[in-house]
């Protein structure tokens, strides 16, 4: 998978993994993987994840990227993709799906090196699922060409073509599109080394960055940038910071640039297309699309065109088109909820709430974004005889933890209008009556 001759694939605090070792371990893994069609790679260690990805490609297994590990979602995926195994590097049980531990496979595999890996551009590397407005997992197939093109364009945009390879540290998991593209595909395509761990607290981020050579890139989110700035932590010299998953304010970006003497770039994308545009947050409101992506104004709305996707993809965010390569982001679609980078449809959340036993009426309330502090959803629900704990227990089985309501407010009825609808201002009045300042 390496495009350059850089000799290090991954960094641990105490050692580096060479390209030779990587090839040998991929070969060992290939010799031990089962003959299945699909794999869910849950490895937490980013280098383990990469090994699993490379070996799966060699075996023509398609990686399923899930937006959540909620059991109900895994069951739905399993019913559509029964020929499936899970590759993991830690404990975890998933009803009925065989779990293979990567360390055991590596220990017992054959160790001759593979020939240089080569893939057909059209080979399916992954299927990334979105939860869709109906709650049914919606598959988005990602070919090798698509993922490598995105990594090439991202690297060119960020100047990796005129810079010696260094190390990439990421606070995001490799199992989501943003993490896969920027912390796995980007280093592989440009010969950079990835940090194998996933630092979490600001101190961890500092340690991880110190364990990789300069130039250093930090792949992260607004939530983590806020924590790094709040703690006023000292970081090793940074080439730049990449942020995605939620809007970053120019003010916070400016603070981070000053404090860490670096530049902060944001990436715009969504699961269906992957990374598509960037901006340097302090410079401009304007997003610049990657060089092979264009923004069309077709009948029915704005669509993104790229040579590696089958047909133009509609943009669900509210945008203002400047020309075919630039746009401004005005807001999210009103049905879309984004909590710390996890997305769901309000319509689907409401349907799940209404599906609970004893719930007569109910609605999720999505507070307006005010700053980078993550705001949680609230629930207003009519469920005579039920407690908030019972509602929470029911929702917990169906929802990713990010979407769990805080709080659940039990009411005798919802203020629906004559048409049976709940206008936003009625919800805002409920919020004013029942939620604290911080909750709305």
């Amino acid at each position, binding site marked *: 998978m390496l495009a350059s001759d850089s000799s290090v694939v991954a960094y641990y605090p105490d050692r580096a993994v060479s390209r030779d070792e990587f090839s040998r371990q991929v070969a060992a893994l290939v010799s031990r993987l089962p003959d299945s069609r699909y794999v869910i790679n849950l490895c937490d260690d980013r280098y383990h994840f990469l090994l699993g990805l490379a070996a799966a490609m060699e075996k023509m297994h398609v990686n399923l990227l899930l937006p959540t590990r909620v059991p109900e979602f895994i069951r739905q995926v399993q019913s559509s993709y029964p020929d499936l195994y899970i590759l993991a590097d830690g404990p975890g049980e998933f009803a009925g799906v065989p779990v293979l531990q990567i360390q055991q496979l590596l220990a017992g595999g054959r160790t001759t090196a593979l020939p240089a890996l080569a893939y057909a551009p059209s080979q399916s590397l992954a299927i990334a699922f979105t939860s869709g407005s109906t709650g049914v997992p919606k598959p988005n197939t990602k070919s090798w060409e698509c993922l490598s093109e995105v990594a090439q364009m991202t690297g060119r945009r960020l100047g990796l073509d005129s810079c010696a390879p260094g190390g990439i540290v990421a606070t995001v998991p490799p199992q989501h599109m943003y993490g896969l593209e920027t912390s796995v595909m980007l280093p592989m395509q440009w010969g950079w080394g990835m940090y194998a761990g996933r630092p979490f607290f600001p101190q*961890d981020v500092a340690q991880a960055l110190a364990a990789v050579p300069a130039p250093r890139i930090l792949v992260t989110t607004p939530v*983590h940038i806020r924590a790094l700035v709040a703690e006023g932590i000292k970081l090793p010299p940074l080439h730049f910071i990449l942020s995605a998953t939620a809007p970053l304010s120019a003010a916070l970006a400016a603070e981070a640039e000053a404090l860490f003497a670096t530049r902060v770039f944001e990436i715009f994308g969504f699961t269906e297309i992957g990374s598509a545009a960037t901006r340097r947050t302090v410079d401009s409101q304007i997003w610049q699309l990657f060089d092979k992506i264009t923004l069309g104004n077709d009948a029915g709305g704005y669509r993104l065109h790229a040579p590696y996707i089958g047909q133009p993809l509609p943009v669900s965010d509210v945008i203002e088109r400047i020309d075919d390569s630039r746009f401004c982001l005005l807001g999210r679609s009103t049905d879309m909820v984004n909590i710390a980078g996890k997305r769901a449809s309000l319509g689907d959340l409401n349907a799940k709430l209404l599906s609970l036993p004893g719930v007569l009426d109910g609605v999720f309330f999505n507070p307006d974004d005010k700053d980078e502090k993550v705001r949680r959803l609230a629930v207003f629900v009519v469920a005579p005889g039920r407690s908030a704990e019972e509602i929470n227990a029911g929702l917990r089985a169906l929802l990713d*933890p*990010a979407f769990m309501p805080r709080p659940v407010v039990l009411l005798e009825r919802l203020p629906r209008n004559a048409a049976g609808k709940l206008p936003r201002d009625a919800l805002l009045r409920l919020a004013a009556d029942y939620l604290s300042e911080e909750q709305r």
Partner: protein
Amino acid sequence: MSEITPFESEVAKLIVDTLNLDVDSADIKPTEALFGSGLGLDSIDALELAMAISKKYGFQLRSDDSNNAQIFSSLRALTTHIQHSRSA
């Protein structure tokens, strides 16, 4: 179950205030899970708590070899970790 200590109550209050939880801090049992099926906290909460702890107790959380799960497993585990780190 053992009694809640004054310091545990203090940290329980910090958790509830920081995360705007809809529970009384006195109702948090020291050995109950904070994440998952207990209070239902998630990793974003852990980061928020880390910031609040750093501000209030003057040290920064670190997860050497990712033992976050251990540190945040319960109110008692978190309180013990804060006490150790403060005196370290």
